[in-house]
């Protein structure tokens, strides 16, 4: 018994010793790590006059299948693929974890697709598989959520942070006659997206001297917390004129509070929301206008970008132009980014045309 206990102790000690020895030896660390991932260089040159090929196989790989947002986006892609007489398909995992898309990318590569439109669950986890795909001639366009540059030819960006931030202030200014105290109900204090938008909102507010930002509250993208924060804002500032909530969770919770409170119709609310979440509040008069991008157009543009790449019209380099069906001409920006355009504003008149 004693002997065995001793042996176990010795084993543990040996393990620790090995660990410490390895620690002392040094090796490859973050600081010494010079090698960076590089994707296959696009050596081909673009021919803007090349016709769109027929019969292109374009596959959509959303973050998660059966997610309403991606169902709408992929339907937009399907419409585009039909227009240029290609073969469309949608595949994907049922969970949105980091690695779940990799198996699908590998099989799409194996199936010899011409283009993949993918919304990456993890910017880096998909890169090795996408790099393999590109080495085998598959064109990769990311949409909604980008992958690291080495993994894709182009990125269809749904919204410019500057446009989103500024237009939300403009929407609210219009609703409250450019006068009064306003507040922002954001997600978390360290949400990169939201903070970038809020910076642009503050800058845009300089143009409206009558409007005063009194507080930025955080609902942590949690329905209950956002609901309580809205309640708190109105108790602290009874003369509040408007709220901007640049998060779909926040705006829905704030609308729910306002719609059942005496502030309904008196305090304006705008921000980023989905039509299905906001429909009832637009119809009962709680909310006049809010905005988001149109996911159907996002998928549509992504499919055209993939087709233009596969047909050799573009290579993904900055400044190249291509036509995206009914959306018109697009120019590739910095780092292969293609900007969809100004956000879509939803109001009582148009909200029933959207389902997501």
């Amino acid at each position, binding site marked *: 018994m004693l002997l065995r206990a001793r042996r176990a102790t010795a084993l543990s000690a040996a*393990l620790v010793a090995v660990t410490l020895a390895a*620690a002392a030896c*040094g090796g490859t660390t973050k600081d010494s*790590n010079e090698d960076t991932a590089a994707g296959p260089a696009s050596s081909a040159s673009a021919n803007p006059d090349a016709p769109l090929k027929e019969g292109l196989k374009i596959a959509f790989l959303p973050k998660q299948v059966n997610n309403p947002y991606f169902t709408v986006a992929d339907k937009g892609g399907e419409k585009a693929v039909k227009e240029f007489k290609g073969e469309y398909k949608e595949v994907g995992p049922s*969970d949105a974890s*980091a690695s779940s898309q990799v*198996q699908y990318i590998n099989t799409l590569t194996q199936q*010899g697709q011409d283009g993949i439109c993918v919304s990456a669950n*993890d910017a*880096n986890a998909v890169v090795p598989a996408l790099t393999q795909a590109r080495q085998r001639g598959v064109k990769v366009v990311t949409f909604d959520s980008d992958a690291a540059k080495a993994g894709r030819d182009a990125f269809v960006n749904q919204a410019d942070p500057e446009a989103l931030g500024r237009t939300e202030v403009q929407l609210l200014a219009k609703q409250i006659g450019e006068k009064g105290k306003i507040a922002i109900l954001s997600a978390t204090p360290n949400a990169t997206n939201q903070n970038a938008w809020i910076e642009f909102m503050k800058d845009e507010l300089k143009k409206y001297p009558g409007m005063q930002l009194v507080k930025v509250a955080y609902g942590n993208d949690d329905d209950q917390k956002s609901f309580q924060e809205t309640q708190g804002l109105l108790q602290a500032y009874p003369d509040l004129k408007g709220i901007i909530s640049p998060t779909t969770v926040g705006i829905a919770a704030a609308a729910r509070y306002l719609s059942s409170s005496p502030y309904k119709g008196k305090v304006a609310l705008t921000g980023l929301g989905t039509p299905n979440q906001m429909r009832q509040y637009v119809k009962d008069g709680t909310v006049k206008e809010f905005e988001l991008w149109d996911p159907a157009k996002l998928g549509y543009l992504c499919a055209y970008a993939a087709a233009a790449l596969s047909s050799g019209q573009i290579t993904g380099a900055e400044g190249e132009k291509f036509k995206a069906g009914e959306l018109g001409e697009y120019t590739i920006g910095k780092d292969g980014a293609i900007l969809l355009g100004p956000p879509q504003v939803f109001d009582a008149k148009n909200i029933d045309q959207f389902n997501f």
Partner: protein
Amino acid sequence: MSTTVLPPADTSEPRPSAFAEHSPLRRLLSWEGAITALLIFAVLVASFGVEGFADSFNLANAQLDIVEIAILSLTLTLLVVIGEIDLSIASNLGMCSALMGVLWNGGLSIETIIPITILVGALAGALNGFLVTFVGLPSLAVTIGTLALYRGLAYVLLGDKAVADFPVSYTTWPSKTLGSLPIPYPTVLVIVLAIVVGVILHATPVGRSLYAIGSNKEAARFAGIRVKRITFWLFVASGAFAGLAAIIYTLRFSSARADNANGLELTVVAAVLLGGVSIFGGRGTLPGVLVAVLLVGVLRNALILDDVESETLMLVTGGLLIISVLAPNAVTWGRERWRLRRLAQKAASTS
């Protein structure tokens, strides 16, 4: 699959041991034989029926997709054989992965991070082992608890961020293959580990004592087997293997995240049970489990390649799990019925 498929030694007559029977016919009729036949059948159907399956690029990727499942199933097999279970393996993997991210951000070298990760995985396993053996709690309850605990710690370590800037020389290692053969390096590692674990389980006194513990803990203890000590160290090994799997997972995807391998424990449990290991302990072989892991991998790969929807995929995995648990019991039940009827007939004829 025919209805004559029997799990190994699932007989109601008292027999000395399942391993006394080595006749080729028995082996063919055994559970392992049946699922090996199923694997061969699946591979043949996929090779001829699914375009692009039997391609070296695809075969190599298909192996990478089951590397972590294979590693975790090795130690889980031993634990289930002694009648215990470890449901915290995938959470432990996630925690170790998050830890790798934190250590790498902290400026440690990969060469240092690798042993530390395995050590921490082993420590997490030791906590399970301690609670099961020395506190005397059931392993199902303990590891459901640590399943949540380790996943929680993973989020404490890394939040919802990802660490991705691992050196390319390490992140490309898992997809490198042995020369021109479609065998990626991690497969070689799995084969080596499987041989070691297989030899321990099937060719050493320790392995025989594992079956003894699984058949009857008390009897094993009276026979002089150090049940607690063995149980404890198996949990430690299970944790260390989770740490090892975390290293491969993290480097393979070049992404250390708290949600890595979320829910993978169920696939591993499914593979172990499908491999013929009895959930009640005392029964099952490592080759059976490895064949089951391959079968799960082949089915997933072929179905995805054939554009089967992910819901159907879950249905297939779930279906296999139910079959693997139900079939042995159904056979036992059928035999018992048959034996009772025979006894009743005998009694009727003698009276």
